[in-house]
C-alpha cells in the first residue's frame, strides 16, 4: 500500500512554487488526471516505466555528445518519467509574450545595423553596442527578408516562487534542444499511451513543418520550391543529433562547409548530380565562423564567399549573421525598454531583476552582495563561467570581484532565484527538483511559438544547474487544456 502513497508523500519545498501540487496531497486542478494516474499506478510502476522509457530512448538512439578525455561519447538523453504540466491559459499569455519579445528584438537588431534610432534616442547606451564583439560591422546596411534577423530563438524561462514566468535569457545565436522536445514527446507517447487519453494535451509535432515554412519564407526565389540546407559543423559537434534529426524531419539537406561553394554570389550544394543552387541556409555554426574571408580567417567550418552572397540577397541565412548582438546579458537588461520603444507596449513577460556591473552604483551593490547573487559573464552560454553566490567559496568570490572590476561591462548579476519545482523520480522516490523551460520561437513572414518547449531539470537535490552537459535531465512538457 505504500506504493499508492507515492504522490501523497511527496513534499514540495517550502518557499518554492511546485508545478504539480499546491501543497502536499493537493494536486493543482489541471494536473489532477496525472496525479490520479500516479496514485493508481504507484511508485514501483513508475520505476518500471522509467526503465522502459530509458530503454526506448536507447533504442531510438536519442543522444547528445559529451567531450571528455579528448573523446566524443554519445550519451543517452536523460528524460524523467513524470511530465511537467502547464495549464493552457497561462501558456497562451506566455507564448504571446515570447512572440512580442522576439518581434521587438528583431526590430532592434535591424535598427542597430541600419539607422540606430534607438541609440540616438538614448534608450540603449550607444557604447554598449559599439563595444560589443557581437556587433558585426560587415552586416551594416543590410535588411534581410521581412526585416528579421533572429529567425529561431530559444528563450530560457523560469518560474519564481509565485509561479510567474520570467525570462532568464534570450538565445538568438544557435539555440539547440528542440529535437529533444520532439523526441521526449515521441518517447512518452510510446511509454504512456493511456495517460494521454485522460487529459487534453496539446501536440508539439508540427514544429518541423513550421520551421520549414519559416525558412521557406526567407527564400530569395519565392516562386520556386526552395532548396534548404542545414549547415552543421559535422558529426563530432555536440548537437549533431539535432542537426541530422531536423534535416530528416524536414526532408532537407544536411551539409558541412565542404559540401557548399560560392560562385558569383550564388551558393551551390555539391550533389551527386551536379551543383544545386541553395536558397536558404539554417546555420548551426557560430556566425563568426561562417566565412573565413570576412570573419575569423582560421575558421575551418566556413564557406568562402558566403557573406557576399548573403549581402547580395542571393541566399538567406538563419539566424542572420550578427543576430548575436541582441544576445548579450547586458542588452538583456534593456529588453523591456526595447519592447516599449518599438512596439509601444508593456512587456507581457518580465525579466529577472538584473544588476549591470557597468553602472557604478549597481556594481557597488553587486560587489557588496556577491554571496547572495548569481554573477554571469555577458557572453557565455551553457552555464559556464557562472558564480552562484550562496554556493561559492571565498576564493571564488574574490576571483570574480577582481574580474568584475577589470571588465565591468562583461558581467551582470541577478538575485538567486527560487526556481519552481516538479516531482521527479530520484532513486525510486518522487522528490522536488528545480526546472526551467526553453520554448522555441520562430519569425519569418509570421511569428510562431512551440506549445511548451524543452523542460530541463536539475537532477541533484537543490541544484539549479539544468544543462545536460552538466548532469541535467529533462521532462516532457504538457500544455494541458484548462479553458474548457
Amino acid at each position, binding site marked *: 500500500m505504500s506504493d499508492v502513497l507515492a504522490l501523497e508523500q511527496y513534499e514540495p519545498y517550502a518557499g518554492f512554487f511546485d508545478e504539480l501540487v499546491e501543497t502536499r496531497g493537493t494536486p493543482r486542478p489541471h494536473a489532477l488526471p496525472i496525479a490520479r494516474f500516479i496514485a493508481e499506478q504507484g511508485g514501483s510502476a513508475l520505476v518500471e516505466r522509467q526503465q522502459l522509457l530509458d530503454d526506448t530512448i*536507447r*533504442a*531510438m*538512439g536519442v543522444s547528445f555528445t559529451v567531450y571528455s578525455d579528448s573523446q566524443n561519447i554519445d550519451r543517452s538523453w536523460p528524460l524523467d518519467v513524470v511530465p511537467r504540466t502547464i495549464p493552457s491559459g497561462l501558456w497562451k499569455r506566455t507564448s504571446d509574450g515570447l512572440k512580442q519579445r522576439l518581434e521587438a528584438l528583431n526590430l532592434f537588431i535591424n535598427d542597430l545595423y541600419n539607422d540606430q534610432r534607438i541609440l540616438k534616442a538614448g534608450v540603449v547606451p550607444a557604447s554598449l553596442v559599439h563595444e560589443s564583439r557581437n556587433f558585426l560591422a560587415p552586416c551594416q546596411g543590410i535588411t534581410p527578408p521581412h526585416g528579421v534577423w533572429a529567425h529561431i530563438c530559444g528563450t530560457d524561462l523560469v518560474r519564481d516562487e509565485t509561479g510567474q514566468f520570467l525570462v532568464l535569457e534570450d538565445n538568438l545565436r544557435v539555440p539547440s534542444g528542440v529535437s529533444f522536445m520532439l523526441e521526449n514527446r515521441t518517447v512518452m507517447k510510446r511509454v504512456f499511451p493511456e495517460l494521454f487519453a485522460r487529459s487534453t494535451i496539446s501536440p508539439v509535432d508540427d514544429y518541423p513543418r513550421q520551421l520549414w515554412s519559416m525558412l521557406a519564407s526567407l527564400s530569395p526565389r519565392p516562386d520556386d520550391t526552395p532548396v534548404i540546407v542545414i549547415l552543421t559543423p559535422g*558529426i563530432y559537434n555536440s548537437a*549533431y543529433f539535432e542537426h*541530422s*534529426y531536423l*534535416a*530528416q524531419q524536414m526532408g*532537407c*539537406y*544536411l*551539409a*558541412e562547409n*565542404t*559540401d557548399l561553394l560560392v560562385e558569383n554570389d550564388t551558393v551551390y*550544394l*555539391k*550533389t*551527386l*548530380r*551536379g551543383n544545386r543552387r541553395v536558397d536558404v541556409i539554417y546555420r548551426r555554426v557560430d556566425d563568426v565562423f561562417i566565412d573565413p574571408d570576412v570573419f575569423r580567417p582560421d575558421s575551418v567550418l566556413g564557406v568562402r564567399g558566403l557573406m557576399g552572397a548573403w549581402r547580395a540577397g542571393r541566399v538567406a541565412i538563419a539566424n542572420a549573421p550578427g543576430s548575436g548582438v541582441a544576445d548579450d546579458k547586458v542588452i538583456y537588461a534593456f529588453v523591456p525598454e526595447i519592447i516599449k520603444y518599438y512596439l509601444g507596449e508593456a512587456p507581457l513577460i518580465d525579466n529577472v531583476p538584473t544588476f549591470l556591473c557597468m553602472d557604478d552604483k549597481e556594481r557597488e551593490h553587486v560587489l557588496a552582495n556577491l554571496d547572495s547573487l548569481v554573477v554571469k559573464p555577458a557572453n557565455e552560454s551553457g552555464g559556464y563561467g557562472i558564480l552562484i553566490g550562496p554556493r561559492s567559496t571565498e576564493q571564488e568570490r574574490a576571483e570574480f570581484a577582481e574580474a568584475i572590476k577589470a571588465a565591468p561591462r562583461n558581467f551582470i548579476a541577478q538575485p538567486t532565484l527560487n526556481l519552481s519545482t516538479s516531482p521527479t523520480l530520484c532513486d525510486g522516490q518522487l522528490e522536488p527538483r528545480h526546472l526551467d523551460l526553453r520554448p522555441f520561437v520562430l519569425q519569418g513572414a509570421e511569428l510562431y511559438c512551440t506549445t511548451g518547449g524543452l523542460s530541463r531539470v536539475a537532477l541533484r537535490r537543490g541544484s539549479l544547474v539544468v544543462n545536460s552537459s552538466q548532469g541535467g535531465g529533462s521532462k516532457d512538457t504538457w500544455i494541458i487544456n484548462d479553458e474548457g
Partner: protein
Amino acid sequence: MLARVAENVYWMGRYLERIDDTARLINATTHILIDSHRDTGFSWPVLVDVLGEDSERFIKEEHSASERAVMHCLIAAENSTASIRYSCSQLRFNARCVREVIPRDIWEELNGLNLFMQEQCLHASNRHKRYTLMVEVIRRCQMVIGVMDGTMLRDDAYHLFNIGRLLERADMTSRIMDILILHQLLPASGPRGQRGIQWHAVLNALGGVESYQRYVTREDERSDVIDFLMSCRVFPRSISYCLDRVREEAAFLPHNDSLLATLEALRRQMDDQDLAVLDVEGLHALIDTLQSGLNDIHTVLMSDALRLSVA
C-alpha cells in the same frame, strides 16, 4: 544527394552484408566441425583468412589457433576489422552520418542491432550460445533489409546501399570459394565431377543448401557447387547474380559510364571461362581475377560515380 553522404550509404550496405555473411559463416563452419571426422584437419584460423585478414599473423600474435581465439577475433574483438562487433560499430557510425536520408524505422533497427551486438558479443562462450547469438544477428540484419524494402525511397541512396551489399556479398562468396573450398576442403584437384567437397557445409554458410538441391535436380544436373556459386543466375548469392544486380542498380546512378564498362568487362571474363575444364589452379586464378575485378568496380564507383578522390 551529397557525394559525402553517398559514400556513407554505400559503406552501410557493405558493413550490413558483412555482418550477415560473417554470422552465417560462423554457424556453418561450426557445423562442418561437428560433422567432420578428425582427419579432415579443418583449422579454425582459416576463417580469419576468409574475412580478409592474415591467419599466420593472427596465430603468431595470439599464440593460439584455438576455436575460442578465432571466434573472439570474428565476433567480439573490438579492434579486429574481421569482427562482427567492429562491423556493427562501423555500420552505426556510417548510419549516424546519413540519418537525414534514411527513415526513422531503419535508423532504429540499425541502432538496435549495434546495441544488441555490443552488449551480447561477449556472451558467446560456448557453441550453443554462439549459435543462438549468430541466428539473432542474422535475423536483425534481415529486419533492416525488410524495413528498408518497405519504407525507403528508391533514390540514389537506395541504389548505393544495394551496390554496397552486393559487392560485399560477391566478395565474401569469392573468398569462401577460394579459401574454404579450394584450400581447405578439396582433398585432391581434378575437373568437374571429381571435386568431392563438403559442399553442404559451404552452401549452408551461404544459405543455399535447398536452393542448390532444387537447381541441380531440376535445371542442371551436371552443375557442381563451384558452378552454382560462380554462375547460377538465379541464386542470390552467386557471383553472376550479384554482378547482374549491381549492373541494374548502377544503371540508375549519374556518371556511370566507366562503372558500367568496368562491370561489363568483369562479367565477360567470368562468362567466357568454361568452368568445366578448370583444375584447382585454374579456379584459383579465376577467383583472383574476380577479386581484383570487384576491387576495380569499387574504385571506379568512388572516383567516377561519386567523384571522390581515392586515397
